């Protein structure tokens, strides 16, 4: 057991561990949101939309905040940025949803959904960066 633990004492190993731990939390968080939205009358597309926009906002904030601080932990970005927020948000589901909408012939939503997601995601990331960057 101690041998195994020693494997992750290098900084790279600990960073990987931070990514994995954060990834587990982020993925569980994403499914929680989908679960909650699934209990309402809202379409499940809104769950993907919500995690992606909220995740972009927080990542923007974290990245800008980290960049402005010299004594920020070297594990902050691997854990929160790469791990939690990377796994909380999703591109594969997003693009598969667009494909399914197009395949079902629901062209209006197939065009509106990605445009709205990208527009709102970009705005959210920008907002997060502005907030995080201001001292």
């Amino acid at each position, binding site marked *: 057991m101690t041998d195994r633990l020693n494997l992750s004492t290098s900084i790279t190993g600990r960073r990987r561990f931070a990514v994995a731990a954060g990834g587990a939390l982020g993925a569980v968080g994403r499914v929680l949101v989908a679960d909650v939205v699934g209990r309402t009358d809202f379409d499940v597309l809104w769950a993907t939309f919500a995690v992606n926009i909220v995740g972009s906002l927080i990542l923007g904030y974290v990245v800008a905040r980290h960049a402005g601080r010299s004594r920020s932990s070297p594990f902050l970005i691997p854990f929160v940025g790469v791990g939690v927020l990377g796994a909380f948000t999703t591109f594969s589901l997003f693009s598969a949803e667009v494909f399914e909408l197009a395949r079902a012939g629901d062209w209006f939503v197939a065009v509106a959904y990605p445009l709205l997601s990208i527009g709102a995601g970009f705005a959210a*990331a920008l907002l997060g960066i502005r907030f995080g960057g201001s001292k």
Partner: protein
Amino acid sequence: MTWVVVGAFGALGALARYGVSGIAQLMWRTTFPVGTLVVNITGAFAAGLLLALVTGRDVPDLLMTAAGVGFLGGYSTFSTWMVESVLAAESGGRVGLRRAGENLVVPLVVGVGAVAIGFAIGQWI
């Protein structure tokens, strides 16, 4: 049980993304965030493939939860894509805006295309 599977495969997906995007970014020495692009496109392709493979088949829910929701969800990322696009726009002037535009449009178009190709291959298998 579902939560454990989602967490474990989400962790694996995030680790795979960390590795793949790092390697891709090293291979193509460019300012374009190619690491995230490679991850998202391969993730989209795999999602299309998985979608076709489970359609009309009696596949246990847990497999879809592990491979699709956990692994691919953890592997691909939307937030990094958005933040990198904003950073590209802020890198300055017209060039920055053009870069941001490219970084928004290319992954979307190629990503949905990758889902379609994965799906077609999955149906053909």
